[in-house]
């Protein structure tokens, strides 16, 4: 049994836009679900010491450093040992990295260990535990065809230049590498088709093609500010979390990494949330990823068509409703944070904000040259009708608490945004036969309710719920959706109240006021919302920049953010890495760049006139 757990931020992500793995700084792949993000895990040591892993590391004491090869998702971990140093390159070949006349495995991880200096004894340990460790499997050594892990008809095939010894529960191998030598290993997966092997002789070619593939992709990114490195890394993380066959973006590649260590705030994030839709589309278009944004909107419109006019909170990568939530009993959970949940029960919640998100995303799509077909127009009108009928209902709201429903201000703002965008689409000639009067009347009614009942005169602030006095960090998005100007006195005093009420030290913010006695991390994206609010006009450019810069040190050494940040230790909490937080980073950076452009333009104009 492993003595200690890794910190969540000790992990790095590798992937191929269909699935992802988490690799620790000790060279161990502790999380891998194949063939897609929400498939069962084959390595799950992230959530249980016996959950399975695949490690390659020196057998002598070492210190490790790591990085991604510049502008790629190829991970390089360097082990510095007393007698020398070795580098471990980990990657999943991109589907496009097809070599001439070679077939491509369904899924594949390539690991290349290179000795740069001295002599280093190294070891490989492969411990597969298919289907969250619940499926019986058989390990078979097949000579030149590697080691087979057979679990039902599913096959995992390990090939390696380590001399491998097969035991019933795992495979191990040892070697001593001298400067200039290398050892290559691959793991391929076959779920439904005869397996395609991955000859080790092709490993370097696949590395070159994968590096080129990622660099070609990052070349397309359109962002030229001082935050470029952060934006590029965030874009690369987001790209890994896009399920390429459908365009869906998953929340995170993991399940049940706790929001509070040792407690039960453990959720499965391997699904696609509609609440991120608008920000996703804006961020993708904003940094020049038009193809990804178009695919995402297509997925969004396809997925939502299946349940319209009602929208669910989350969908799977193909737009279907996920299987019900269940627990993986028998697993300890990360640092004893039980239960380990598979599936997400939030799909049964009512979140009225998602209507605004979907319609706003569709509006961005039109603004970037897209067109609606008649079916999509019909669907958008149906969403508008649904909002008119239901905006007075209480809902769970953006944070998905598992308790009673409330009249959430953020949800109302998004209902307002939904109708506002539909009216704008209609006026722009992009939405026909919409009941404009009804939409306009309801939009005004919603505004009246927000201004009268979501504004707390005593606190001088908008508040989380109608007639309440609590605060919700999502209110920072009110200007984002165009509901109110960021420098409006009501918004300014809301910002002051929000900072007092939800400040977690420095630039960190809690998402809402926690009940007495409860504990939770600061919510990563809320800090970026604050930076964006300031950049949009809620504060000065300098204030916004300082706020943004103060959040960045809370990323791990590779620039990856989780969902939450422990305000006392600064460590990452929750599922990792988190698309939502990286979206927030990109969105805030775009707004900062926009503001800089405006101010630079104004200064130039002043100089010119002078």
């Amino acid at each position, binding site marked *: 049994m492993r003595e200690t757990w890794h910190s969540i931020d000790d992990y790095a992500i590798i992937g191929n836009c269909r699935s992802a793995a988490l690799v620790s700084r000790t060279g161990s792949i502790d999380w891998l679900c194949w063939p897609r993000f929400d498939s069962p895990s084959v390595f799950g040591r992230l959530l249980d010491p016996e959950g399975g892993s695949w490690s390659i590391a020196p057998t002598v004491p070492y210190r490790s450093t790591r990085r991604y090869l510049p502008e790629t998702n190829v991970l390089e971990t360097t082990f510095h040992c007393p007698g020398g140093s070795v580098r471990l390159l980990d990657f999943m070949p991109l589907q496009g990295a*097809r*070599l001439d*006349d*070679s*077939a*491509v495995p369904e899924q594949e991880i390539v690991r290349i260990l290179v000795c740069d200096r001295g002599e280093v004894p190294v070891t490989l340990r492969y411990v597969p535990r298919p289907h969250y460790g619940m499926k019986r499997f058989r390990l078979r050594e*097949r*000579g*030149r*065809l590697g080691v*087979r892990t*057979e679990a*039902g*008809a*599913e*096959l995992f*095939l390990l*090939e390696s230049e380590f001399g491998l010894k097969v035991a019933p529960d795992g495979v191990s191998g040892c070697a001593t590498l001298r400067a200039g030598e290398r050892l290559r290993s691959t793991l391929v997966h*076959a*779920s*439904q*088709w*005869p*397996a*395609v*092997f*991955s*000859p080790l*002789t*092709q490993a370097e070619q696949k590395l070159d093609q994968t590096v080129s593939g990622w660099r070609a992709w990052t070349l397309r990114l359109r962002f030229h500010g001082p935050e470029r490195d952060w934006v590029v890394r965030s874009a690369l993380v987001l790209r890994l979390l896009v399920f390429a066959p459908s365009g869906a973006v998953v929340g995170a590649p993991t399940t049940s990494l706790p929001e509070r260590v040792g407690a039960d705030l453990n959720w499965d994030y391997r699904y696609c949330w509609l609440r991120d839709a608008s920000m996703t589309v804006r961020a993708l278009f904003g940094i020049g990823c038009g193809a990804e944004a178009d695919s995402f909107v297509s997925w969004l419109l396809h997925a939502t068509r299946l349940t319209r006019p009602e929208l669910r909170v989350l969908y799977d990568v193909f737009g279907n409703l996920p299987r019900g939530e269940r627990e993986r009993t028998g697993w300890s959970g990360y640092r004893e944070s039980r239960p380990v949940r598979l599936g997400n029960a939030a799909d049964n919640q009512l979140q009225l904000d998602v209507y605004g998100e979907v319609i706003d995303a569709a509006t961005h799509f039109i603004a970037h040259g897209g067109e609606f077909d008649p079916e999509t127009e019909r669907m958008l009108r149906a969403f508008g009708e649904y909002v008119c009928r239901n905006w007075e209902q209480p809902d769970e709201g953006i944070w998905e608490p598992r308790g009673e429903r409330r009249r959430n201000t953020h949800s109302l703002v998004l209902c307002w945004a939904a109708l506002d965008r539909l009216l704008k689409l209609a006026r722009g000639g992009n939405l026909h036969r919409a009941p404009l009067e009804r939409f306009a009347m309801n939009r005004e009614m919603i505004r009246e309710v927000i201004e009268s009942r979501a504004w707390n005169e005593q606190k001088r602030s908008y508040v989380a719920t109608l007639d309440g006095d609590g605060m919700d960090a999502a209110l920072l998005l009110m200007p984002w959706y165009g509901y109110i100007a960021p420098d409006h006195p009501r918004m300014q005093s809301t910002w002051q109240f929000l900072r007092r009420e939800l400040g977690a030290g420095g630039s960190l913010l809690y998402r809402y006021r926690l009940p007495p006695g409860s504990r939770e991390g600061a919510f990563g994206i809320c800090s970026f919302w604050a930076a964006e609010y300031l950049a949009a006009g809620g504060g000065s450019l300098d204030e916004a920049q300082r706020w943004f810069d103060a959040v960045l040190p809370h990323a791990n050494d590779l620039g990856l953010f989780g969902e939450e940040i422990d305000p006392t230790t600064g460590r990452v909490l929750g599922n990792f890495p988190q698309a939502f937080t990286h979206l927030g980073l990109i969105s805030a950076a775009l707004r900062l760049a926009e503001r800089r452009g405006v101010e630079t333009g104004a200064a130039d104009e002043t100089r010119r006139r002078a």
Partner: protein
Amino acid sequence: MNVGAWLLWGFAATVLLTTLMAAGQGLGYTRMSIPYMLGAAFTPHRERAKVAGFFVHLVNGWLFALVYIAAFHTLGRSGVVLGGLMGFVHAAFVLTVGMRLVPGMHPRMAVEEQGLSEKRQLEPPGFLALNYGRATPVWTTVAHLIYGLVLGGFYSVG
């Protein structure tokens, strides 16, 4: 020989066999895909191989149906029992002899004794195609039984 019936029932039997095998793949019982294996002989590209292989498999289905029909005419009768029996023999042949021969004939299939090469990357089926999952022999036999039952049941010698 009734050419129309041969084409019709040969097609129907092949489609049923292919559907059953594909269902076995989708349900996780087997990874055996005769169309993919056939198509991979022509192209390494997975999706193109599936499409090309499907058409080759369809033609194969018609050719095998000719053998069945020749047997029906030779014996002077058809019927589900005879068709089913032939389907069983057909499956046994495919699983034992056919699967053993495939690695030697297939340009992209790895050979266990020789290991991998940059061209030979496809997993060999092994005895009874057990490499593709332990339920593969059962699933393959049932699919071929159905193939024989359709031909025997619907093709009339008279």
